[in-house]
């Protein structure tokens, strides 16, 4: 719509302006010159100079204009390209420096060389940096190009050196830290690139410290100390790499939160690893090591290493505890300690359950486990034998309980509990020990045997201790199972009462212990018949007893007990406390002076030859008898001067053989009875499967074996060729 005049006017104006911009040069070359000038200014400004060169004086305004012009001409990318190209051309300067410093580092191995190198690089960076006011694009391009270049020239050895440099900074106090260095890390991008390295330096520092301070130190809680150390020593250092640029404390805190908890975790993990390694010895040191266990508990809550702990304990137990060289008592003691320790670490008992299983299985295989447990049950607390803490209240054995769903405090089983885990309430140690076996009857039996031994060993008539023990055991096992023990105890006191009564009727030097056969464990049987006056003493006593208790009969166990003898010889009198067999023999020598071993044995009844000879040798030792040719012994009416007379006087020879048949021996005896039954049923019923045999064996009174035990027994019988088995059917092996 514009008129021609207007159009002309605009054209003239345009021409005029163009000419001015073009500075009267032909064509558009003037205009080109304009932008070229800007280019020269800009690239001169950006040109990467050597460090030694003095910085050129640039007019900021001019540079700004030049860049504006270039930007308007869209020549900025080209400028950038040429800048990067210039850097590439000049990078040999940096490479030269790096090589120089690294060579020096390799010669000295000093981290300070690395520090100088880094500071030098930071100088390069500062010199070459285009300056922030030129816009983000340029600086970003520069940083990328610069860092790429540095990283490409830094040799592999640098990482090691860098690590040592960081480590050296850890040892410095806060004031001595060179903040320039950390800024340089940041600027050069080293902080980001070597982040893992920096962290690992710190981890190693922590590990070193934990190992140095905590190893073997179990008597005080280390975790709080460690945390304190972290706060005092490591935290200030952490501010440098992790909280750069934090302006306020709060800001620093926020920045440190993530990394801080990572380091705290590492403290816990290191301590946990250490304690896991040491756990066996910690358990041995219990209760002195309780603080260490508390630490471990806290660590485990933070670090999920329960499985490792279980593994470690099981492995240590297997290697150090559950082998034939370890005493059963020691295993039990350690087991009890483990129970106590793991109760501290893990009150629900999941860890304990997992650790205890192999120990319990192993203990079950040991023949003397029950005896050891029972012995510790009744042990004197003074002797230190007791596994039970004196302060622990005596309580009834706890039985496995099913979950009470009405319990408002019910808690589900812990997540790592196995399927066979049984939630058992923290029961006392004795309950746990007794529960190694399925039935407590075994303990009761063993208790009876032990009690019998102890009662028979009491000579001063003081049964108070045993009575106390039984009262304690009653609380644990209940009244009923210990009734037998009651009877045994009563027998002892009754014996004394009866003895006193018999004495009033007819004085006797015999003091028998009268026991009720049905309530006592089997005593070792022997068929010794006392000869001579010893026998007449027994008989007159029996007579008096029958008068006193007409419905009862005494059966003498002549081989038990001791006899106090005064042996009057022609020239001397010998006093001795000896076992009955010895007494019987010497009594026979009052009939004639010389006996052969065979003759003596035939007079006293069934005695093994070895035992008989041993008894006779006792007298030889005492200088009463003399062994002669052909296994004959002669009484020395006058002391044998050549034989080296022992000083006469009282000498006690007590047979150390246990008088009470052990539970094992009893069981072997029972198994012999069961074999008769098995033989009977297989004879009459042909071949039977194992479970039939098991059910049929209930005809045998008191049969209480499991089918597994029976299987073991049958297998033993098969090896002896008594039975054969085909397709699960057992039959007698008929010749």
């Amino acid at each position, binding site marked *: 719509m514009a008129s021609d005049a207007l159009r002309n006017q605009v054209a003239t104006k345009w021409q005029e302006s163009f000419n001015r911009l073009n500075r009267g040069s032909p064509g558009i070359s003037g205009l080109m010159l304009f932008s070229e000038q800007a280019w020269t200014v800009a690239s001169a400004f950006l040109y990467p100079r050597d460090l030694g060169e003095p910085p050129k004086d640039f007019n900021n305004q001019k540079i700004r204009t030049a860049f504006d012009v270039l930007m308007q001409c869209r020549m900025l990318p080209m400028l950038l390209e040429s800048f990067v190209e210039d850097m590439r051309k000049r990078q040999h300067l940096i490479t030269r420096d790096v090589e120089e410093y690294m060579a020096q580092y390799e010669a000295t191995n000093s981290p300070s060389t690395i520090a100088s190198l880094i500071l030098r690089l930071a100088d390069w960076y500062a010199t070459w940096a285009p300056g922030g006011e030129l816009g983000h694009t340029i600086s970003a391009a520069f940083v990328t190009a610069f860092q790429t270049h540095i990283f490409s020239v830094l040799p592999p050895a640098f990482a090691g050196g860098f690590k040592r440099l960081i480590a050296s900074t850890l040892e410095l106090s806060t004031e001595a830290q060179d903040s320039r260095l950390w800024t340089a890390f940041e600027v050069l991008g080293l902080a980001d690139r070597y982040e893992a390295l920096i962290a690992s330096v710190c981890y190693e520092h922590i590990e070193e410290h934990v190992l140095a301070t905590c190893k073997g130190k179990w008597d005080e809680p280390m975790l709080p100390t460690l945390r304190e150390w972290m706060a005092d020593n490591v935290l200030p250092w952490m501010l440098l790499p992790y909280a750069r640029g934090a302006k306020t404390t709060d800001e620093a805190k926020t920045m440190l939160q993530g990394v801080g908890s990572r380091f705290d975790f590492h403290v816990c993990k290191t301590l946990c690893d250490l304690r896991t390694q040491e756990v066996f010895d910690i358990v041995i040191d219990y209760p002195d090591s309780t603080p260490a266990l508390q630490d471990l508990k806290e660590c485990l809550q933070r670090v999920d290493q329960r499985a490792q702990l279980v593994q470690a304990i099981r492995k240590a137990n297997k290697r150090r505890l559950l082998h034939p060289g370890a005493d059963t008592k020691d295993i039990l003691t350690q087991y009890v300690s483990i129970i106590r320790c793991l109760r501290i670490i893990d009150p629900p008992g999941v860890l304990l359950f997992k650790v205890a299983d192999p120990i319990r299985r192993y203990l079950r295989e040991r023949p003397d486990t029950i005896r050891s447990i029972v012995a510790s049950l009744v042990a004197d607390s003074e002797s230190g034998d007791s596994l039970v803490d004196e302060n622990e209240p005596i309580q009834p054995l706890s039985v496995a309980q099913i979950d009470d769903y009405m319990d408002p405090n019910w808690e589900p089983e812990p997540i790592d509990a196995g399927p066979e885990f049984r939630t058992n309430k923290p029961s006392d140690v004795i309950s746990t020990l007794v529960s190694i076996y399925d039935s407590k009857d075994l303990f009761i039996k063993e208790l009876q045997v032990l009690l019998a031994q102890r009662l028979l060993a009491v000579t001063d008539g003081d049964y108070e201790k045993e009575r106390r023990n039984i009262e304690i055991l009653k609380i644990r096992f209940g009244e009923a199972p210990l009734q037998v023990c009651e009877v045994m105890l009563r027998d002892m006191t009754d014996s004394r009462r009866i003895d006193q009564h018999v004495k009033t009727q007819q004085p006797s030097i015999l003091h028998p212990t009268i026991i009720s056969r049905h309530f006592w464990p089997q005593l070792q049987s022997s068929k010794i018949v006392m000869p001579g006056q010893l026998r007449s003493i027994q008989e007159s006593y029996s007579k008096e007893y029958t008068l006193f208790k007409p419905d009862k009969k005494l059966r003498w166990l002549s081989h038990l007990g001791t006899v106090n003898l005064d042996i009057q010889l022609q020239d001397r009198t010998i006093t001795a406390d000896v076992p009955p067999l010895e007494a019987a023999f010497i009594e026979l020598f009052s009939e004639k002076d010389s006996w052969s071993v065979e003759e003596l044995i035939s007079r006293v009844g069934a005695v093994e030859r070895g035992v008989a000879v041993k008894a006779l040798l006792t007298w030889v030792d005492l200088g009463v008898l003399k062994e002669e040719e052909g296994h004959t012994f002669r009484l020395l009416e006058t002391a044998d001067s050549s034989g080296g007379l022992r000083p006469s006087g009282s000498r006690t020879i007590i047979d150390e053989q246990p008088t009470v048949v052990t539970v094992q021996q009893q069981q072997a005896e029972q198994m012999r009875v069961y074999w*008769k039954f098995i033989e009977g*049923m297989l004879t009459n019923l042909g071949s039977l499967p194992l479970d039939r045999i098991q059910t*049929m064996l209930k005809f045998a009174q008191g049969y209480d074996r499991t089918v597994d035990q029976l299987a073991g027994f049958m297998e033993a019988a098969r090896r002896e060729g008594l039975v054969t088995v085909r397709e699960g059917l057992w039959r007698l092996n008929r010749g």
Partner: protein
Amino acid sequence: MEQITSSLAPPPPRPSAKAAVAGPGSDSVGSVTKRLSNELMTLMMSSSPGISAFPKSDANLFEWAGTIEGPAGTYYAGMTFKISISFPPNYPYVAPVIKFDSPCFHPNVDIVSGSICLDILQDKWSAVYSVQTILISLQSLLGEPNNASPLNPDASNIWDSPEAFKVQLARYYRPLNDESA
């Protein structure tokens, strides 16, 4: 959970032998089973050669199976016979019923039914006898039959001719082999 816990719990106490063996369940039956289990115990612990017996199943103490070996020096030497013993509920006031399960060619044994003619099992029974005495009597009966009251007249007739008897005996005898039970 209930199941798991219960299966983990220690096995329930084995019912006592007495309770399980008790038969129909009255006091007298209780005393009979007691007597029978005592007899079993005695029999098992005594080692009388060639005789043996045992209850047929664990559920019933009133039915026993027995084994008798022929005594040496008789026609029956080396042979083994199976018998069954069933005790009446009022044992030992009434004799048990005993018969041969293996065919036994003998003057006092019915070859078909296995019934036995032995005075102490009939009119001469006394409560002081026991399984063991019965078995010993039976064992001796093999060597010394009572030919006056034969259940098997054929056997009785040829008892005195060893050759003929042995032929007959061998014809009927079925040795026990491992097919048993």
